[in-house]
């Protein structure tokens, strides 16, 4: 039956809306809260993929989303759609000899990026390894649930893991709807209004970097960050996948701005910069330290470099 519909639609693009409306009416009426079926619900249902929208359409969608967020959180939002900066490819460095496992990065990230507080979503997992045991690619020896009174604990070292922003991202390859893709500046992003929540990307990611909104994300009004990017930290929905975007809402605005996790790190373990700029700190680290990347054998080619500075 759907095949028939498709043929019709190809012949007469004008009928697309009506046809779809009819076909999808049953489903949406079930999926949406009753009594909420105003025009904005339909607009959101028929919202196009990020790449299919022209400038005007995107502006209209952003205006609608800002309205919706205002209704939900009672605050004025600014949703940017800043494009990648030419000549920039972001890279990240993490100095394992400095990290003390304090998890400040985890919570700075949550605050900056509007992750759900209930249920809790963290984009960064800090793993604790016992010293003198096994190399950091044997994760079974690690735990992210360490809970001592003070860190660092004697005899342990720490390795934070987040999205490795692969040059060859398996998550993008498997997405059945192209709802996630790699931007020109190397950041893999998600269109939260296009993701169908199949979670194939989560199965494909070798770094456990993707998070799913198992329930409606809850964030207290006073904790919300209203400075957002369409592909970054704008509030997410129930049933979609999200991930680290190197704080796209900050780093694309002014060259030289750091992601929240870099800024908060009390020991300077985190480095960030432009891989294409030979003068950048990240390039210096890669060229002068003993760097490695996680799971090199999978050929994902991360832009996230771990190193030992001392």
């Amino acid at each position, binding site marked *: 039956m*759907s*095949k028939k*519909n*498709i043929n019709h*639609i*190809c012949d007469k693009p004008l009928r*697309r809306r009506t046809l*779809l409306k009819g076909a*999808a009416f049953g*489903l949406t009426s*079930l*999926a*949406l*809260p009753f009594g909420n079926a105003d025009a904005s619900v339909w607009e959101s*249902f028929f919202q196009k*993929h990020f*790449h299919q929208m022209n400038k005007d359409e995107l502006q209209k969608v952003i205006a609608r989303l800002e309205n919706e967020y205002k209704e939900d959180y009672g605050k004025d939002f600014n949703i940017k759609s800043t494009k990648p900066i030419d000549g920039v490819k972001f890279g990240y460095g993490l100095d394992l000899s400095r990290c003390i496992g304090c998890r400040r990065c985890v919570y700075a990230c949550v605050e900056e990026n509007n992750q759900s507080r209930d*249920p809790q979503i963290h984009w960064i*997992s800090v*793993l604790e390894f016992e010293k003198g045991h096994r190399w950091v690619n*044997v*994760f*079974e*020896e*690690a735990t*992210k649930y360490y809970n001592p009174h003070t860190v660092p604990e004697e005899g342990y070292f720490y390795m934070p*893991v987040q999205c490795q922003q692969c040059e060859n991202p*398996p998550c993008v*390859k*498997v*997405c*059945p*709807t*192209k709802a996630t893709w790699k931007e020109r500046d190397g950041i893999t992003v998600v269109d939260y209004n*296009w*993701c*169908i*929540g*199949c*979670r*194939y990307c*989560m*199965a*494909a*990611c070798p*770094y*456990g970097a*993707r*998070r*799913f*909104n*198992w*329930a*409606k994300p809850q964030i207290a009004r006073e904790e919300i960050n209203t400075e957002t990017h369409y592909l970054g930290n704008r509030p997410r*929905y129930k*049933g*979609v*996948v999200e991930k680290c975007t190197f704080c796209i809402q900050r780093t694309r605005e002014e060259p030289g701005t750091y992601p929240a996790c870099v800024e908060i790190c009390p020991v300077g373990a985190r480095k960030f910069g432009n891989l294409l700029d030979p003068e950048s700190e990240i390039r210096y680290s890669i060229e002068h330290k003993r760097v490695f990347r996680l799971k090199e054998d*999978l*050929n994902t080619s991360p832009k996230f470099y771990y190193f030992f500075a001392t």
Partner: protein
Amino acid sequence: MSDLLQPIRNFFTALKFITKGGTGYYAWLAFLAMLIVYGLYSYITQLDQGLIVTNMRDQVSWGFYISNFTFLVGVAAAAVLLVIPAYLYNFKPIKEIVLLGEMLAIAAIIMCLLFVISDMGRPERGWHILPFLGTMNFPASLLAWDVLVLNGYLAINCIAVFYVLYKLSYGKEYKMSFLWPIIILSIPWAVSIHTVTAFLYNGLSSRPFWNASILAPRFIASALCSGPALMIILFQIVRKVSEMEISNTAIFKIAELIAYAMGINLFLFMAEFFKEFYSGSIHLAPMEYLYFGLHGHSNLVAWMWLAFIFNLSAFFLLLRPKTRENFFTLNMACVMIITGVYIEKGMGLIIPGFIPGTLGEIYEYGPSAVEKSVSMGVWAFGALFFTLLLKFALPVYTGKLRFKASESGD
């Protein structure tokens, strides 16, 4: 005027056949309806609160729904085990029942699609995956492939089944020249649905348990066990409750074919088991979790050994002509195979992909009450669909139900 009304009259004739039955029939329908309603109620809870009502989490992001989906793809593919002897080798006893296998395939695919929908975080955005309407990521995403092959297989079987039923219900002979290409196409297509579904997991280098080349062959071998085993049981029910004749020869032949498929399945299992345990690399962990438990986590261990013992015993029961042709041992073997493969190609395949997780975490998963009741609802829906389809198809097949053609008039 009477010409125009004839299809409507025919519809009511069919309806009469479908709704007429004994107490047992009504009890069966009521039982299924109850499960469907309860499943639907649970599904609405899930839509409302999100997938948090399941026990899936970021660590184990696929669970019971996808396990059932995977098993049912196997059941659907199994119709091919009837088609090959029936049409390629012209084995008459099976030729007469090949339609039943195709109807089972239709029901299985419908259940597959329902399980996938149940698993989606945003089911109302399902159209995003369709070609032309949405932005299907073809050919990069194996899930896109799966959407195509599963719906294609559904279409092929629907055409074959409804064409034959349509012709027969008007008392006409169906044309082999029309049916033959469809049947031929359905053979590689049946293999493809299982291959593509296997590749869906197989292609992920992040999950060492799935990332083994033996996955697709094992998928097909076990599919050729579970589907036909289910059919053998259904055939016996069908010939008991209807006038349809299904010969013992056909049933025993299918049982023999299952034995060979199970032999291959067990061999492939052994090959996998040997490789993992003998080489003993860090990628052994999921296998260790399945069969011996990992760091004290052993939810699936008993199930996996049960599946192995069932599959092995059923293999011997079906291999020996004496036990194969005894209905008690035959049915016992069939039930063991259905259970064994359900464990092995369901939870036993999906969960170890996630345990241990990519960062080494072990999150023990078992389906929640909502997952169980939604799944039960889907199974009940499939059973209801299959029952009603049979209730219409069997009298057509045996010649009891005949429509009047509208052109002849009254």
